[in-house]
């Protein structure tokens, strides 16, 4: 008799274990807030809790936690939640330009490229200076960007797909989010243009 009851109990627990999480999934409130928005994840978790490291690996336990490394850097809005460009320009970090020579200085080119864009979005100002602090000319030219005015077709779709600027921005360099649009789209359209638009709108 007791064995029989135990069996029933075990079976019911077993079924419940599988059904309950499913039920929670299906019973999600259809009128809930942020239906398609992904849950805010924990910022800068240690390797043992980050979901890609094996928490039982001895190696994982020896690795540095990002929070510890980022504590001396300047906070940012997206990506790693640190501002890499500011942290570099203000000397919070001092990454080597040559793997063996800590004193090697980067060859910085100070040239801004303005790209006029469609619609109301501010024009894009591309600063060579910040990019050449980190990169070599050959990283982008000529494979990703042809070094010639008007020769490069760039769209937000291609960037989101990981092409053009998206080769880095969206993977390592700051990603495309509402908080980062204005980092590139930084030059408001000229006032004269706005005036003409406003007049034509009234008609």
């Amino acid at each position: 008799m007791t064995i029989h009851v135990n069996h029933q109990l075990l079976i019911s627990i077993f079924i419940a274990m599988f059904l309950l999480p499913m039920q929670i999934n299906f019973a999600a409130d259809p009128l809930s807030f942020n239906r398609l928005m992904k849950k805010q994840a924990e910022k800068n978790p240690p390797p043992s809790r980050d979901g890609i490291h094996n928490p039982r690996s001895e190696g994982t336990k020896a690795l540095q936690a990002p929070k510890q490394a980022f504590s001396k850097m300047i906070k940012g809005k997206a990506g790693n939640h640190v501002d890499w460009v500011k942290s570099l320009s203000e000397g919070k970090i001092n990454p080597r330009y040559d793997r063996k020579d800590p004193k090697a200085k980067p060859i910085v080119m100070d040239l801004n490229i303005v790209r006029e864009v469609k619609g109301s979005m501010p024009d894009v100002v591309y600063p060579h200076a910040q990019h050449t602090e980190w990169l070599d000319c050959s990283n982008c030219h000529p494979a990703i960007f042809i070094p010639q005015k008007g020769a490069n077709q760039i769209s937000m779709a291609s960037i989101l797909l990981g092409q053009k600027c998206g080769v880095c921005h969206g993977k390592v360099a700051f990603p495309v989010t509402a908080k980062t649009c204005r980092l590139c789209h930084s030059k408001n359209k000229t006032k004269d243009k706005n005036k003409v638009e406003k007049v034509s709108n009234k008609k």
Partner: protein
Amino acid sequence: MLGNYTHKKKGRVITSLMILLFVWLVFANSSPVHAEYGDLVLNENAENEGMPPVVFPHWFHRIRFRCKVCHADLGFKFKAGGSGINMLKIIDGKYCGACHDGEIAWSVENCALCHSGKDKQRTHVHGSTVNKLVLPIKNK
């Protein structure tokens, strides 16, 4: 006799409820945890060859080196798994081996420091925008 039986039953109900509560807590309240933006999981060959996948933390390396060092001097492609790296190249001083030689950084005998990934992960860039979009995007 009967009282003893109901007492036992109560105990079972409580344990089963506690188990259910535990299961519910595990499944329903687990908030998403994400690795660092730019972390690479590399598993082109590793698991096929019997080693755990490699995790490469971009953030750690860019504190110490500029992009140019790896991506211009050492020939790393701008694509996860795109450089065709294997241990032979590393011990010959190419790619990771250019620094992980026991002089600039710790050497290759520390297998588990790189091969520390969870099992059965595909090669990918963690937290990349293209993987986080609600809808897939089409190029125009």
